[in-house]
């Protein structure tokens, strides 16, 4: 099983504390450095939680931006007793789930000649046939709590305890969600004709 280590996971807690302190002091270079570490990781989870296509990427960009603004404006509230990424993961999870909840209240907009829209993804046709596109579609069929769990585990390679902190549940619940989530993903993929 390929291990996916996110950017910055090898940094020591001391390095992290120094960077956070510099950000709190308003150091623009520290802010930029921290943003460069956090943004890709937050974006990866948000992107695939929202389907990963052109529309999903756009929603994910908003969600990721929301998380990053919170991280930087609430830096004073970060106590340092948990790893910074645990705190960031928790905000990412909550932002993704909140976004999904708010979208359920909105009526889907009927597509109006979307393929003529200037912003349409020019690679969409090629992507549709790809393995990644199938997996993205299968992921989107997962219930939101299972979806966020499998994505967090995949992109961040967290332990069950770290997952529990991020998801706000017990390690046993994490185990259950991951087992059910992966199995359901495989079933959805088989149904889409994309079994490996």
């Amino acid at each position, binding site marked *: *099983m*390929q291990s996916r280590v996110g950017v910055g996971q090898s940094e020591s807690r001391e390095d992290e504390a120094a960077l956070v302190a510099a950000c709190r002091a*308003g150091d623009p270079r520290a*802010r*930029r450095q921290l943003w460069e570490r956090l*943004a*890709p990781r937050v*974006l*990866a989870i948000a*992107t695939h939680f929202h389907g990963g296509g*052109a*529309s999903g*990427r*756009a*929603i994910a*960009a*908003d969600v*990721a*931006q*929301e998380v*990053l*603004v*919170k991280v*930087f*404006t*609430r830096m*004073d509230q970060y106590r340092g007793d948990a790893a910074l990424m645990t705190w960031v993961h928790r905000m990412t999870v909550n932002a993704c789930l909140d976004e999904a909840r708010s979208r359920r209240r*909105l*009526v*889907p*907009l009927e597509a*109006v*000649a*979307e393929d*003529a*829209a*200037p*912003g349409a*993804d020019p690679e969409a046709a090629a992507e549709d046939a790809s393995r*990644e596109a199938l*997996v*993205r579609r299968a*992921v989107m069929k997962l219930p939101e709590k299972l979806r966020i769990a*499998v994505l967090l585990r*995949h*992109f961040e390679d967290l332990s069950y305890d770290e997952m529990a902190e991020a998801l706000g549940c017990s390690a046993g619940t994490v*185990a259950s969600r*991951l*087992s*059910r*989530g*992966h*199995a*359901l*993903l*495989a079933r959805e*993929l*088989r149904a889409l004709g994309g*079994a*490996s």
Partner: protein
Amino acid sequence: MSEHPLDRLDAFARGESSADERARIEEHLRSCEGCREELELVREGQEALLALKAPQAVDEEGWRALEAALAQSDAVRKRRSRVVPIAVAAAILAGVTMLAVFSAMSLVRKGRVVIEADGERSAPAVLEPGEFVESGDGALRLKLGALGQAEIGPGTRIGRVGSAPVPLKLRLERGSLRAVVSAPPRFFIVQTPHADAVDLGCAYELEIGEGGRGVLRVDAGKVALERAEGAERASAWRSVDVPAMFSCSILPGLGAGAPLRKDAPESLASLVRRAEAAPLSLQSADPASLLAARKADALTLLHLLGVVAPVARPDIRDRLDELVPAPSASALDGVLALDPPAIHAWSREIQDGG
């Protein structure tokens, strides 16, 4: 092990079970086909996720948007800290933080464009990047997050461009839009086929007809009409600032025309219309129309220089110089060649009160 270890298969598949747990599960699997199948599914699901690519590296636009949000948040904190006595600062620190976060979050939420009113729709819908909506025979209202709102007239096709919350970009293909925006300058942009309307803090109306020809009318504040990306323009300058009380044509091949005041003399308005009907073709501006122009029409004359043929420019320039003297000798000559620094300098002179 009598119960099925379904909830533990993920850890087992990863080799993360303890030795005892692993032994128990292996023994169970020897006699339970259902769990063996479930384990196979868990492994398939884990492997499938390897196909997901991480997105491209985040771009500079995201960093700039974050900086803008943080700057707004910092500004709120500073304003609050100036008026609050030190003795009570600690007591309201939580409130200041929440206000700063709210302000910053408002900036981020500015990225959400919601179609709020539509006779056929019973609930709001979000206009996503790349999506377009057509108003048909009715009207729509777009809520632009905390930036403001836009009223969309019948027969309008409008969509969202890009995903960044700042600047928020819409594209008006045809029809009309009336916007009231309360946001820092350049936070809201409406693209049209031939010119981009860049909000500088204002209320305005934009109409686009067949072929992308249209008109911008500014009721309050100012809008910068900039050359649409990819659009050719004969004159050199990119932006025509259209202040309140002015309207400005949007012309194929030229971008912005010459801004015209609402109360401009009819003869001057007629001159502008003749020039815009065939851009860069009008060979002379009739003296009567030029004489009718007032100091308040100086901006019109300045930008009319870019709409007429070069041979017509000296007379217009001379009348402009009578109303609002050129800021420098180089500007006096430079505007005949539509030199951008000359145009900008004279524009500033006009807008500063001449």
